[in-house]
């Protein structure tokens, strides 16, 4: 079984557009959307949800106001400034709370109880291209890394059960916990970048993260003709770091047109972009 994750560092470089096209081109695979903050892949793959599951992670305090005597110890010791005693009432700021449970442990009145926190949902689904596992993290919730791990774990189970040899993961932007949870242990990271100063800067950082976690990377330059000089800078950077460039995609409105139609671009048109993506997939896989 091979697990390929598509990432970028910088957001909006075309991860999901490429992931959807690969979903349409690859055979015997399962897809997973690990951008759990803002999952978009399902908008192009139109899944039918077969199972919906709640995601619980972390703890959230509840105060029994009949026991609380507003002594203020919890407020004083909370390092996240998540407890405020105002107008003789103790209030938890659930957005600031990190669920450490220290308040419940120190409360002399035992007025605080830590409860399980419902912080999202995840879905098993079927699409015309194969099974898709995706998730939705609740607004303003933490624990995105755990939800990413859950999506990957379920994608692996589906692959095993259905005897599929390939897992395609649409990853999150950035370089912190959800990204680390998406790439660790994967066989290959396809890094989508663009020839802009921001794209180059962010590529260099995310490549360092793949190296840090020992994940092999291949780079795709999207909209390469927007700035040919920057595109050669990217190729040079890849050469110096022994990373292969898996292909280039030119700047074309057909990508947006396909997006508005809700289709992977390779299914929408037979344009040059489609050929470039087919070549990339052949080269990478």
């Amino acid at each position, binding site marked *: 079984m091979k697990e390929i994750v598509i990432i*970028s*560092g*910088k*957001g*909006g*470089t075309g991860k*999901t557009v490429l992931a959807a096209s690969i979903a349409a081109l690859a055979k015997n695979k399962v897809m997973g959307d690990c951008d759990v*903050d*803002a999952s*978009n892949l399902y*908008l192009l793959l139109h899944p039918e949800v077969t199972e919906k599951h709640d995601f619980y992670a*972390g*703890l959230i305090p509840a105060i029994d106001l009949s026991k609380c005597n507003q002594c203020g110890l919890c407020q004083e*010791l909370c*390092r*996240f400034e998540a407890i405020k005693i105002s107008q003789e009432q103790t209030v938890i700021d659930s*957005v600031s709370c*990190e669920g*450490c*449970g*220290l308040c419940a*442990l120190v409360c002399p009145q035992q007025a605080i109880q830590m409860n399980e926190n419902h912080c999202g949902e995840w879905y098993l689904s079927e699409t015309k291209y194969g099974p898709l596992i995706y998730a939705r*993290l609740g*607004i*303003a*919730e*933490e624990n*995105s*890394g755990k939800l990413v791990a859950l999506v990957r774990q379920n994608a692996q189970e589906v692959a095993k059960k259905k005897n599929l040899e390939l897992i395609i993961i649409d990853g*999150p*932007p*950035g*370089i*912190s*916990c*959800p*990204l*680390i949870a998406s790439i660790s242990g994967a066989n290959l990271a396809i890094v989508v970048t*663009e*020839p*802009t*100063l*921001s*794209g180059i*800067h*962010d590529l260099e*950082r995310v490549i*360092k*993260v793949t190296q*840090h976690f020992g994940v092999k990377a291949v780079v795709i330059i999207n*909209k390469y003709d*927007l*700035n040919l000089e*920057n595109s050669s800078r990217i190729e040079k950077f890849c050469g110096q770091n022994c990373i292969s460039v898996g292909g280039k995609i030119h*700047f074309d*409105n057909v990508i*947006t047109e396909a*997006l*508005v139609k*809700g289709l992977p671009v390779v299914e929408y048109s037979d344009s040059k972009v489609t050929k470039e993506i087919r070549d990339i997939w052949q080269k990478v896989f």
Partner: protein
Amino acid sequence: MIISVASGKGGSGKTTIAVNLALALVGDQKNNVHFLDCDVEEPNAHLFLNPLIKKRESIKIPVPEIDYQKCNYCGKCAQVCVYNAIAVTKDKVLVFPELCHSCGACTLFCPQKAINEEGREIGILEEGKSGSISFIGGRLNIGEPMAPPIIKKIKKKSIEKYRNRENEDIKVKKQYILLIDVPPGTSCPVIESVKGSDYTILVSEPTPFGLHDLVLAVEVLQKLQIPHGVILNKCDIGNHEVEDYCKENDIPILLFLPLDKEIAIAYSKGMPIVNLNRSYKQNFIQLFQNISKQYKIV
């Protein structure tokens, strides 16, 4: 006034808007413009503002260090740590610093007082000037999982400055404007970045992805009760759904920016668009005036 620029979706033009708004506003002597780059995972604003960095500071978070002279391996620290950042064996205490949230429970509950907290660097803070714009940015170290502690630190620093300067500025009839470049998404780093803003500009694009992520971002701002409006970037590329959504939900569209290859190329070179064309500068000044008006009504 504290204005944050966010979007939900990555690559919709947050940094472009934030940077150009800063450059347009700084042209007016009445304004005192500060820029805060909270996208500490992939910071980009410095590529356009080229600030002269005068100060670099290491950002550290406290993590437990065990004093083996005192530790008796009772296991209390591991028991109170909900993040599984400490494990205790017969003759060893294993600390996993990347999992630690610095809540302090282990230190507080250790019966032997055998835990001290040591600072562990997770990133750096950079402070400097770009012309007359004051710049503060953060940078998460490679391999570190947690961005919010860095965002908290850099925000605290600039908001303190803001509060101190606000009164002074009123005396000299200057307007203090703090602009915050927010990371993409809707989870903890975003919340930490927009919290405390007077107003949030949401940058969106007229595609299904743009709409989907805009709806999530609006939910965040409603939860935090921050007034907000939308800039529709590349407004001529997709469909009308974002506009319809904004109309239905009474969210003002502050500015329409068409797709312009000239802008895309300038962006690729790190060139601000207010330098391309006077009308862009006027657009951004107008944008700020609209926000101020709307903000005063709220």
